[in-house]
């Protein structure tokens, strides 16, 4: 038997090789930073006219939670974002794959993608409202576009960047084009797609709030717009903080998904 028994360096067990667990210290530092930020804010609110301090914003937040308006607005906003984002991603991934895999599809689709990519989805809001009314459709549509544009380019780039040697390696083992696509191209482009999804989610979220500033009946953007006409500055802050916290939470969720799905990648 030709078994080589030289002791080679054993790879660390999987658990240890995962992303190193954050030690306690960064968390402590993060909390300290948060406390400093709140203090600066509190001090600034004493000096700047009309700027509410953390306490009054927290009180307002408590009221909005108690009367249910914060939850309603948040749910309305989340529903729009998820609908638009889910549709955008679901449509973008197959189209990106098509573009990456078939030169014909690429030639036909790429001009449109490249052109519409340069137009911020927000710039389409006035047109969307004129064409689709002031209901949910134009809002979901612009969010859809925002998610679609980031994701389609990522999926396309993911397919184009698949290592040729991997494709050749599969081919010499007897893989058909279809097998190569399913078994090699799809997994190899997953990291790209997940990055595109994260960018798309950020873009969707940004687009949502702006879309709600125009002609909405509920939602966090609508709440801010209304509060500004009534000069309820703490309400604006509550809505802003909610938007930030939710955006961060969604990003972290996708990051977690990315780590789980693409943990096989070699980090350099």
């Amino acid at each position, binding site marked *: *038997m*030709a*078994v*080589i*028994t*030289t002791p*080679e*360096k*054993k*790879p*660390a067990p*999987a658990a240890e*090789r995962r992303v190193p667990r954050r030690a306690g210290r960064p968390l402590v530092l993060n909390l300290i930073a948060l406390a400093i930020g709140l203090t600066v804010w509190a001090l600034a609110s004493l000096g700047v006219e009309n700027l509410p301090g953390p306490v009054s914003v927290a009180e307002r937040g408590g009221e909005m939670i108690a009367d249910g308006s914060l939850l309603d607005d948040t749910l309305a906003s989340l529903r729009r974002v998820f609908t638009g984002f889910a549709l955008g991603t679901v449509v973008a991934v197959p189209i990106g794959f098509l573009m990456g895999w078939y030169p014909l599809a690429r030639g036909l689709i790429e001009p449109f993608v490249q052109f519409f990519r340069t137009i911020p989805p927000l710039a389409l809001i006035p047109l969307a409202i004129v064409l689709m009314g002031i209901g949910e459709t134009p809002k979901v549509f612009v969010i859809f576009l925002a998610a679609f544009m980031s994701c389609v380019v990522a999926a396309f780039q993911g397919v184009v960047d698949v*290592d040729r*040697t*991997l494709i*050749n*390696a*599969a*081919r*010499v*083992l*007897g*893989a058909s084009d279809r*097998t190569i696509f399913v*078994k*090699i191209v799809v*997994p*190899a482009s997953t990291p790209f797609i997940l990055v595109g999804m994260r960018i798309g989610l950020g873009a969707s979220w940004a687009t949502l709030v702006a879309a709600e500033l125009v002609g909405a009946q509920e939602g966090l953007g609508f709440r801010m717009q209304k509060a500004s006409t009534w000069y309820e500055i703490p309400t604006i802050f509550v809505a802003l903080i909610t938007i930030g916290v939710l955006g961060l939470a969604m990003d972290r969720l996708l990051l977690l998904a990315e780590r789980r799905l*693409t943990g*096989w*990648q*070699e980090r350099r």
Partner: protein
Amino acid sequence: MKTKISFQDVVKTFPMKDTSFVALDHVSLDIADREFVTVVGPSGCGKSTLMSMAAGLVAPTEGQVLVDGAPVTGPGPDRGVIFQQYALFPWLTVRHNVEFGLKLAALPAAERKRRADHAIDLVGLGDFADALPKTLSGGMKQRCAIARAYAVNPQVLLMDEPFGALDALSRVQLQDQLLDTWRQEQRTVLFITHDVDEAVYLASRVVVMAARPGRVHRVLEVDLPYPRTEEIRLSAEFRQIRNEVWHAVYHQPQAAPAA
């Protein structure tokens, strides 16, 4: 002896801006069944192109490549290929990499497992069957790639500078291991390298190629017995053949112009 792989007057040109680059210029070469042939030459001599043609990944511009007398029309599991860059599927464990070709051959799970285990044991990766490629060293990655090729039991092994990226120690180990399995299972091996020592140590015949245009410069018989051992590696006979090959590689008649 029966001819396994036959390059017949093969020409390969790649189109360039105004002209075309001649990678291979009328190359003819026969490789016998169960023979171990190494191809050595300067970069740009087309040695990798030669292998890719036998693999069916590149089509010749003129001439033809025959395997078992039939023209090569594309890649197939009868010819295992080992790439310099390992080309492991990084999202699959060692075992799943090795089973990849077996799944394509639609083998039942039990048979797949048996053959995968055999191939993994053969290259000494038994303890790492469930590890992902990213946790393996370069030498272990290449062993995994070799196991993946062995598993489908090809009659021909095509190896494109497989040990080029490894440290000297791993290289020697893998050379010996490769020769061991070759002697046991007697496949036809076409092995591309730029390392003269490696070319002589492994082969029964060394093909020295010249560059610009890529062509066969000399073919040298290596008249050393198998199994090749350390003794042979350090022997005077080995050194003599090695020197001869060295001269053929480094003192080619028509010195290539600076690229």
